[in-house]
């Protein structure tokens, strides 16, 4: 008819059903896998509505014994000390993590190290430290170095290395090669090339990643005391042992308040530092103090980069002018350094002991390597399966609540501003209570076993999941929604057709990530008797059976890592 009739098919040849393609098949397989896994998990952990209803009288009884939460007057001084310990433990741990992660990230970046085996080795370290939970490291280090803050610092540091180094290595691989070539062209040496060509470009990433990690570690630090690694968790363990429930609940609330405070503090810091010049990647004046923020107190490296970087913004011989941003960054930098010093003096950690322990690390890890397979008993296999079951069941329960909730917590789909604010606040509050603490309370209420752990994990995850998924929804562009809206669709229809398809890939990615997290958390629940492999791990630690510990850690690693590989494969298929 016209030039437009490019269509070559007859209209009755067009199928009325969506054809099956790769990503659609993957999606359905994932859905089936998730459904089967969830049903299996819920059965395995023996969790049903009935068991919750049956257990209610006991729960109520316990809640009555817990009420009202108190902070015992005679413990106040002791608790204050523990609060400071927790803070500095997290801080020093993150700082060490950053320090160790920087060289590791360089070694893992393909545009720095062309020699593949070195890169693979660095990547292996990253993957391993990331997959093993902080609490598991803490369990090991407490046995080696004794009860106290030091094993806590080491555990946080070692586990943090993985995540920081991974993100940093990605940042290094993403840098603009131009400036680096420019530096090479001036005849600079290898080290100068690294510092001026690469390091100067990744400083903003280093700072933001470190701050982000610090937030995570502040959340994780309060529970490390459960295994004797210092901090406020010691108090929870003590109260639990003595059945002092009102005090237990009191400390729980104290932890929630602390976590919220930390959150605010880190948000303020983030805005102050990243909102200034570093955000816009002006390197010259930000660099030296930027390093100090991370606790990189090596004056040599600062001195090395100064000529190259300040020289760019100031005439030769003079130094960079003291702008507002520079002052701000310097305050932050020196403050960070001061805190690091404080971390070692206030909780009274011997620096000498610290460095000995770092040097001793390879030895510790060697002791963990199982020399035979006797550790792999039926009980271990059984508990590992239970761990996976808890992971499935708790993720499922959390998502059932969090997915609908996230549409109320997203600014662009919430029915009103009030609902949005309320849901966000709710998510924030739920998130602030560490799941292990909830598990302690639930174990006391409904007894030992995986059911308590599953509920605790699911509850704790609702907050995080709601936040994460709501953030996904908020990133959806408006224009397609306008199009649906203009056809006369209702609000609900508009969200269904205009938002859901757009948000699906990122939501799916985050759901897999949540499963990943819950799997890692479920490995440690057993430490408080809430099911999973943690129980045997804790027992092995108590009896100083290092090879069994090592074997279990290795199997945790294998499970967590294979889930991660699987989820990254799914993500690639669907996006």
């Amino acid at each position, binding site marked *: 008819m016209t030039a437009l009739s490019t269509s070559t098919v007859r209209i009755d040849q*067009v199928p009325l059903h969506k054809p099956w393609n790769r990503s659609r098949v993957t999606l359905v397989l994932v859905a089936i896998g998730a459904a089967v896994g969830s049903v299996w998990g819920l059965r395995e952990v023996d969790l049903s509505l009935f068991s919750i209803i049956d257990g209610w009288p006991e729960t109520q009884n316990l809640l009555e014994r817990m009420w009202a939460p108190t902070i015992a007057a005679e413990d106040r001084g002791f608790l204050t000390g523990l609060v400071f310990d927790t803070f500095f433990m997290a801080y020093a741990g993150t700082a060490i993590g950053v320090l160790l992660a920087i060289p590791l990230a360089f070694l893992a970046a393909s545009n720095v190290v062309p020699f593949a085996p070195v890169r693979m080795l660095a990547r292996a370290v990253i993957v391993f430290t990331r997959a093993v939970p902080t609490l598991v490291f803490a369990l090991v280090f407490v046995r080696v170095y004794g009860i106290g803050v030091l094993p806590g610092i080491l555990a946080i540091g070692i586990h943090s290395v993985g995540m920081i180094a991974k993100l940093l290595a990605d940042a290094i691989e993403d840098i603009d090669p131009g400036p680096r070539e420019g530096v090479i062209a001036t005849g600079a040496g290898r080290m100068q090339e690294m510092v001026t060509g690469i390091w100067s470009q990744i400083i903003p990433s280093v700072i933001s990643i470190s701050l982000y990690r610090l937030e995570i570690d502040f959340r994780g630090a309060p529970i490390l005391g459960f295994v004797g690694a210092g901090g406020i968790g010691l108090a929870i363990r003590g109260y639990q042992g003595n059945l002092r429930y009102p005090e237990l609940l009191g400390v729980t609330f104290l932890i929630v308040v602390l976590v919220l405070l930390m959150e605010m503090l880190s948000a303020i810091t983030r805005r102050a530092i990243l909102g200034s010049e570093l955000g816009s990647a002006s390197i010259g004046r930000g660099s030296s103090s930027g390093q100090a923020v991370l606790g990189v107190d090596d004056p040599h490296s600062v001195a090395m980069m100064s000529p190259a970087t300040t020289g760019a913004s100031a005439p030769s011989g003079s130094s960079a002018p003291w702008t507002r941003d520079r002052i701000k960054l310097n305050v932050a930098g020196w403050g960070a350094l001061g805190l690091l010093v404080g971390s070692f003096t206030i909780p009274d950690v011997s620096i000498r002991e610290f460095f000995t322990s770092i040097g001793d690390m390879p030895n510790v890890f060697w002791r963990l390597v199982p020399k035979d397979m006797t550790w792999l008993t039926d009980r271990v296999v059984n508990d590992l399966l239970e761990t996976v079951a808890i992971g499935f069941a708790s993720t499922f329960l959390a998502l059932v609540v969090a997915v609908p909730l996230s549409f109320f917590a997203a600014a662009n789909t919430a029915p009103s501003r009030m609902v949005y604010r309320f849901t966000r606040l709710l998510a924030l509050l739920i998130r602030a209570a560490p799941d292990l603490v909830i598990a302690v309370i639930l174990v006391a209420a409904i007894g030992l076993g995986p059911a308590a752990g599953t509920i605790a994990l699911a509850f704790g995850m609702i907050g995080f999941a709601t936040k994460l998924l709501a953030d996904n929804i908020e990133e959806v562009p408006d224009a397609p929604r306008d*199009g649906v809206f203009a*056809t006369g669709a209702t609000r*609900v229809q508009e969200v269904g057709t*205009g938002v859901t*398809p757009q948000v699906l890939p990122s939501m799916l990615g985050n759901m897999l990530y949540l499963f990943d997290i819950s799997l890692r958390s479920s490995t440690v629940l057993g430490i408080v008797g809430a099911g999973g492999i943690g129980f045997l791990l804790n027992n092995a630690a108590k009896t100083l059976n290092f090879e069994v510990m090592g074997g279990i850690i290795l199997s945790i690693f294998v499970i967590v890592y294979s889930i991660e590989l699987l989820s990254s494969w799914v993500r690639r298929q669907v996006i």
Partner: protein
Amino acid sequence: MMSTPATAVEVSNLVKTFDGGRVRALDDVSFSVPEGQLLVIIGLSGSGKSTLLRHLNGLHQPTSGDVRVLGVDVPASKGAELRGLRRDVGFVFQQFNIVGRLSCVENVLSGALGRLRGPRVGAWMYPKAMRREAIEQLDRVGLADRAWQRTDTLSGGQQQRVAIARTMMQRPRIVLADEPVASLDPEISGQVMDVLFRLCLEDNITVLCSLHQVDLALGWANRLIGLRDGKIVLDTLVDETTAHEKVMDVYLRLDPDGKKIEEYQPSRSARASAEEELRRARRQAGAFATGRDAVETIDVRG
């Protein structure tokens, strides 16, 4: 008072100001459109074309004046009544506003949402008859062979044709097209205009289309309205004798020396504020999207 059925759109003394009266986007605009007319509104960007069209399906509230579409008092209606009107009034956007991740059929199907109750996510949730209808609409715009392809894999012109098919799926009585070809190259523009006006003629649909290409306007319109600075400066029926120069005059009077364009800067910002207000009005939740820190978008494996 009911308008006579023969009148599709009746606008009288319409005034729209933004930013508390500082920007006057529409200044005492009155006109009426009989059913079946193909009306093109021309004018520079910022002359008020978009703002005018958006009043006709209730995306904007007038500051003063009357807007009646298909006998409905648009500013006074809300909820189900307004949605009912929107079903009868299709809207074609400059940026297509389709859901890129969905297939063409699924995008076209979303035009039928007004006929259904409750949300729909994928094609399988629509009745079979509707799916067939959607494929027919795609055939009308020449894209039946792309039916199940993801829409974001198509070219711009093809995407706009999918959007037109979606509008047709609504079975509208009026189509409002807001610069439907502004983001397409000239050759494709002609094709897309061709599709849009041909389908509307076939289905006896009234069209109000804003454009800034005078040539395209003359090729398709029964009637032209020229807007300048929120006022109607030209209103003429079009036939073969309508001189290109006469229409161009609308532009020439604006810009004989290339200097006056600058005076239109405030009107351009009127467009921006109009869009902003649209968003605000549209979502009761309002413009309170939270600013998140960059790092949280990094895929972090804790």
